[in-house]
């Protein structure tokens, strides 16, 4: 069983260990390869993922009851339209991406805007493991143990102005290695996403830099991606280079492409079908052949935590 420690910040329990894990990550600047071979056991120990450790420390597990999808499935099934429209080819093609050095520009309606080294950001935020359901708008689902930290921690640090109502995210644009982006295919590039401020500040919303106790594979959004577990996967933007606090609701890539099919909110909702297919059930990928669908849950099973964000909003209209 994997465990993690949402209630007590990881830093308080395993300060040194977490630091070690982050240091291992940061040394990636010297050798990317080293990152990818960081032994799971070491990372797991570093992040206090050793079975029972969180419980002993009095921590409660977020998602500890979920069984993670086999890593080989998660690593080899990603929608990364900058590279290809085929989920199984993204693994190979994304390896050409350049992820070092990496900076994140934080701009817009905040006091402390600027261009930050990813290394500096990661130094400041202790990693936590979050085991989340991940539901694609196409009807398949996974369970992924992410490593990351609440987006809220970073946003608070840059001191949002009261005029900040939304957060806009932008993916890296690397035309040399991203064929579909270079050819201007399908979506409006670079990929953009957005959240309402309260969604961005929600404790379930994280910025992830790793999964399965290791740094993120490139095809899964390295070096830094958003994870919003109650929304369809396309909201969880990959390879973030820009975070901007805005007054107005930002444009988002899929909404721009087909506004009647992909809304700004894109909350997982079995009662609101996509115009061409049902969202009432999902195929949970297990790597096996005989694992029939299961009913999809409202807000992907996180209704208890997030339903209040939407109050009496009509979710059919604001899909």
């Amino acid at each position, binding site marked *: 069983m994997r465990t993690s420690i949402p209630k007590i910040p990881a830093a308080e329990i395993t300060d040194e260990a977490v630091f070690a894990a982050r240091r291992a990550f940061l040394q990636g600047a010297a050798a990317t390869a080293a990152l990818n071979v960081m032994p799971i056991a070491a990372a797991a120990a570093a992040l206090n993922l050793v079975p029972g450790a969180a419980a002993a420390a009095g921590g409660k597990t977020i998602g500890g009851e979920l069984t993670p999808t086999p890593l080989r499935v998660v690593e*080899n099934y990603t929608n990364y339209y900058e590279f290809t429209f085929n989920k199984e080819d993204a693994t190979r093609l994304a390896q050409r991406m350049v992820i070092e050095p990496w900076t994140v520009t934080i701009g817009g309606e905040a006091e402390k805007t600027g261009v930050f080294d990813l290394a500096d950001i990661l130094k400041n935020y202790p990693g936590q493991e979050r085991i989340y359901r991940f539901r694609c708008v196409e009807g*398949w689902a996974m369970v992924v143990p992410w490593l990351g930290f609440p987006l809220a921690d970073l946003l608070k640090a840059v001191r949002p102005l009261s005029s900040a109502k939304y957060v806009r995210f932008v993916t890296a644009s690397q035309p040399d290695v991203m064929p579909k982006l270079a050819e201007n295919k399908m979506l409006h590039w670079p990929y953009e996403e957005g959240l309402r401020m309260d969604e961005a500040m929600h404790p379930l919303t994280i910025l992830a830099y790793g999964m399965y106790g290791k740094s993120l594979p490139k095809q899964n959004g390295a070096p830094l991606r958003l994870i919003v577990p109650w929304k369809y996967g396309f909201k969880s933007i990959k390879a973030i280079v820009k975070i901007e606090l805005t007054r107005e609701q930002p444009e988002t890539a899929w909404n721009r492409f087909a506004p009647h099919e992909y809304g700004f909110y894109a909350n997982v909702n079995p009662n609101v079908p996509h115009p061409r297919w*049902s969202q009432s059930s999902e*195929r949970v990928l297990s790597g096996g*052949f005989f694992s029939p669908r299961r009913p999809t849950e409202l807000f992907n099973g996180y209704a208890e935590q997030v339903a209040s964000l939407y109050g009496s909003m009509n979710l059919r209209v604001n899909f």
Partner: protein
Amino acid sequence: MKLMLSARQWWWLALAAFCWPLLILGVDIANANLGPDPVKAVHIRLGDWSLRLLCLTLTVTPLQTLTQWRGMADFRQLFGLLTWFYASLHVWVYLGVDQGWQWPLIAADMAESRYIWFGLLSYLILLLLALTSSVFAMRLLGRNWKRLHRYIYLAAPVAVLHYIWQLKGNLAVPAVYGLIVGGLLLFRVASWLQGRPKLGQFWPRWAGGRLIQPAKPR
């Protein structure tokens, strides 16, 4: 090399050839060789073969028209039945493996998925045609048999819609099927027009004059 097979031998050869993809699929399932979403991979294989076979079935009559070779009706029946067979497996995998016979889930999925409506319509046509494909049914239905079996011209474009409607927008491959089916339908329309004396001479002379040789009296 002697390729002097009899029509009957060709028939058996074609049957064996089109069972091959199923064999390969079986091997791939047994070896867990279908990637991270094997159920979807099976949908795609079986769906693709259904559509390919459907296109092949549709080419028989035009080929017959062009070559004037009349021995092809058996092949049309064979390809048609194979289309139905693959489509049946495709539907069965959807119901039994993907949905695991969970009828409430199936009902909800079918009710809300437009692409499945098209798949279902196409399948129902194929089913009806398969059930009435025997010589016995042909005799029984008389003139109506031909009328009924013209619905294959509906089954094909509807299957292409079924394919297009499930995608997020990358339409290159289904567009190819659309072109093939569209071409075959156009050919039928053209030859139908030529079959009518007043509308004849549709084809320019430099293109060989008439598309079909002097039409049989109707």
